[in-house]
């Protein structure tokens, strides 16, 4: 947010509002119009003591941070999605949940986010207000605050309606160690629910497929679910959220990093019938579709039941399932036992999935 005049303080300044329906380049000029836009759209939703000073930086107390753990986690991600609003979410919810999830899968408790927006002139102010409210609600539900930000407005065609970049910091629980280096042969691979919902919802929401399926994105913060998992199973070997590239990419990364094989059982991979149907029609593979509210975790064989039960007790983990295990051979590859009784390799996605001609 822009630096404020030193003479005014938060308590005396009247909050600005935008009275025009659409954002223009004037709102990016650094003057009153820009301050009004920031006040009206963002400050009114994100309000918290760290943000309200509108300094060039948020200042955090170190002692507050060290209460929760012994290491900081820091991450950043940019969000570009078309359309901006889709069943189950919008770019705002995605930008907050996505960065929270990147922290949470590292075993961190997410605390604070920054939010930088690049706005294309001509976007409706009401849409921006809705998206900011969605960001605020998502952050509040996850117990995270948005404490600093930046706003830019660019000319038509210089960006596609709205780009959002969020960075986040979180604190990693003392003693927690997750990562591929801890995975052993025989460990179980678990997913926390239906796969592919987000990718399918976005494809469907673009509307050019003329499919009448109602598929909602799974977009959600995962820190609550991961808290529950770590509470009963602090020995979890590995946690990751299968976003772009889907499940297939995550399990391939595991196989590559560990040198172990991963054996998947197609029949136990939870995929909604609507998503399967859509993939059948378009010739896509749901294993490569993006998820925005799922975890893939690896746990020791004897902890499987405990971990599974913890995930299933949570509202967004009800369909959690064991989908495979780490095996000695073939080294570094992912194999899937198909529902048909055959076996095939599941490889990394090459480029982008393109619908097939026939």
């Amino acid at each position, binding site marked *: 947010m822009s630096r404020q005049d030193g003479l005014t303080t938060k308590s005396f300044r009247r909050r600005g509002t935008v009275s025009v329906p659409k954002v223009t380049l004037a709102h990016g000029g650094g003057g009153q119009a820009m301050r009004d836009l920031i006040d009206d759209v963002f400050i009114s939703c994100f309000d918290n003591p760290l943000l309200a000073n509108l300094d060039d930086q948020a200042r955090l107390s170190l002692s507050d941070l060290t209460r929760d753990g012994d290491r900081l986690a820091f991450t950043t991600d940019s969000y570009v999605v078309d359309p901006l609003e889709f069943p189950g979410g919008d770019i705002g919810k995605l930008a907050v949940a996505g960065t929270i999830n990147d922290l949470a899968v590292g075993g961190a408790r997410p605390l604070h986010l920054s939010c930088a927006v690049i706005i294309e002139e001509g976007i409706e102010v009401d849409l921006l207000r809705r998206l900011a409210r969605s960001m605020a609600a998502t952050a509040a539900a996850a117990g995270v605050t948005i404490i600093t930000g930046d706003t830019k407005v660019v000319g038509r065609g210089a960006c596609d309606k709205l780009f959002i970049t969020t960075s986040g910091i979180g604190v990693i629980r003392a003693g927690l160690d997750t990562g591929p280096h801890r995975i052993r042969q025989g460990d179980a691979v678990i997913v926390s629910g239906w796969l592919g919902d987000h990718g399918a919802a976005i494809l469907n929401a673009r509307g*050019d*497929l003329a499919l009448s399926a109602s598929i909602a994105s799974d977009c959600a913060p995962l820190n609550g679910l991961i808290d529950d998992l770590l509470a009963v199973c602090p020995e979890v070997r590995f946690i990751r959220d299968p976003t772009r590239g889907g499940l297939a990419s995550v399990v391939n990364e595991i196989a590559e990093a560990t040198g172990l094989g991963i054996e998947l059982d197609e029949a136990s991979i939870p995929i909604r*019938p609507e998503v*399967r*149907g859509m993939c*059948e029609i378009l*010739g896509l*593979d749901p294993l490569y579709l993006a998820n925005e509210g799922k975890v893939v975790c690896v746990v020791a064989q004897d902890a499987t039941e405990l971990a599974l039960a913890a995930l299933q007790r949570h509202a967004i983990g009800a369909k959690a399932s064991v989908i495979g295990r780490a095996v000695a*051979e*073939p080294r570094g*590859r992912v*194999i899937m036992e*198909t*529902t*048909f*009784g*055959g*076996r*095939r*390799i*599941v*490889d990394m996605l*090459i*480029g982008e999935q*393109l*619908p*097939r*001609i*026939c």
Partner: protein
Amino acid sequence: MKFVDEFRDAYKARILRAEIERLVGRIEICRYRPLQIMEVCGGHTHTIFRYGISQMLPDAVELVHGPGCPVCVLPMGRVDDCVAIAEVPGVIFTTFGDAMRVPGSRKSLMQAKADGADVRMIYSPLDALELARRHPCNEIVFFGLGFETTMPSTALTVLQAEAEGIENFSIFCNHITIIPTIKAILDSPDLRLDGFLGPGHVSMVIGTRPYEFIPMLYGRPVVVAGFEPLDILQSIWMVLRQLSEKRQEVENQYRRIVPRDGNAAALGAINRVFELREFFEWRGLGSIDHSGVRMRRSYARYDAEKKFAVPAVSIADPKACQCGEVLKGVIKPHQCKVFGTACTPETPLGALMVSTEGACAAYYQYGAIGELLERKAAMP
């Protein structure tokens, strides 16, 4: 999922596999060498790899992955023509998704799009016609691609454009025909195939009669097959049954879709709009007589080849490519000199590495699991 899961039943698959094994014992050739059955259609290749069907078969049965992927067999010169048309100012070039990545000699359509050409992925030629209605000041070109499967929809779209008097719409016609291609494979001197799985969707249009020359003149059985894994297993079993009974016929496994005489309305539309070319260039197979169609003269105003000055330069396949030998079953994809090294799905040299329906890309993507695992381990 209804009407899908029934065709993927693992229990029925086990029964079929046992039956296939039983038949293999009765076929004389199998005592000397493995049987080679070609699935002509890329859709079949995809199913075979996706469900691991090759690994379910006894060692004595080998599947050879045929030329039936229209995206794969598109020669570089034609892709260059696409790019040239797409780069004309005011043109909106529309294409099916998987043709975006096919490499030309300079660039693919995806690269042309990145360089500023207006290239759009669509799901039906009717989407292209809709663009023509919405953008009367642009010329909308549809990349007509595929065998007889997609030919009727292109033809009907042209007829629709004519009926509505839409003039800013044209087809860059690269449709190809299946029968001359199968014949070219049968005529090759190093042919080793013992039978064919005939394409399902093509046959829905042309029927099963056009294949009758294969058993009659070449003595090879043909079974027109569906696309679900049980369809494929059953069709393989039907080919083996013919071989064990020393019969050579055209049989139709995909009877729920394919009529013997094809679809008269679809064939009518094709004949109205298209005519055979003297020859058409294929990636990996070279020039094949009468294997492609072009727009009839009466539809010249919808023919992008007439509307635009296309370079139409023939570009030779890279020398290192052994696509032709793979297509004919002489070698397997991984035995090609450049497989997985110079030729990968990210940087395909040869036709078969281009689309997921191509044999080499399928081998690369889904893996020839046999090289990694003992066959026995894959068979419970």
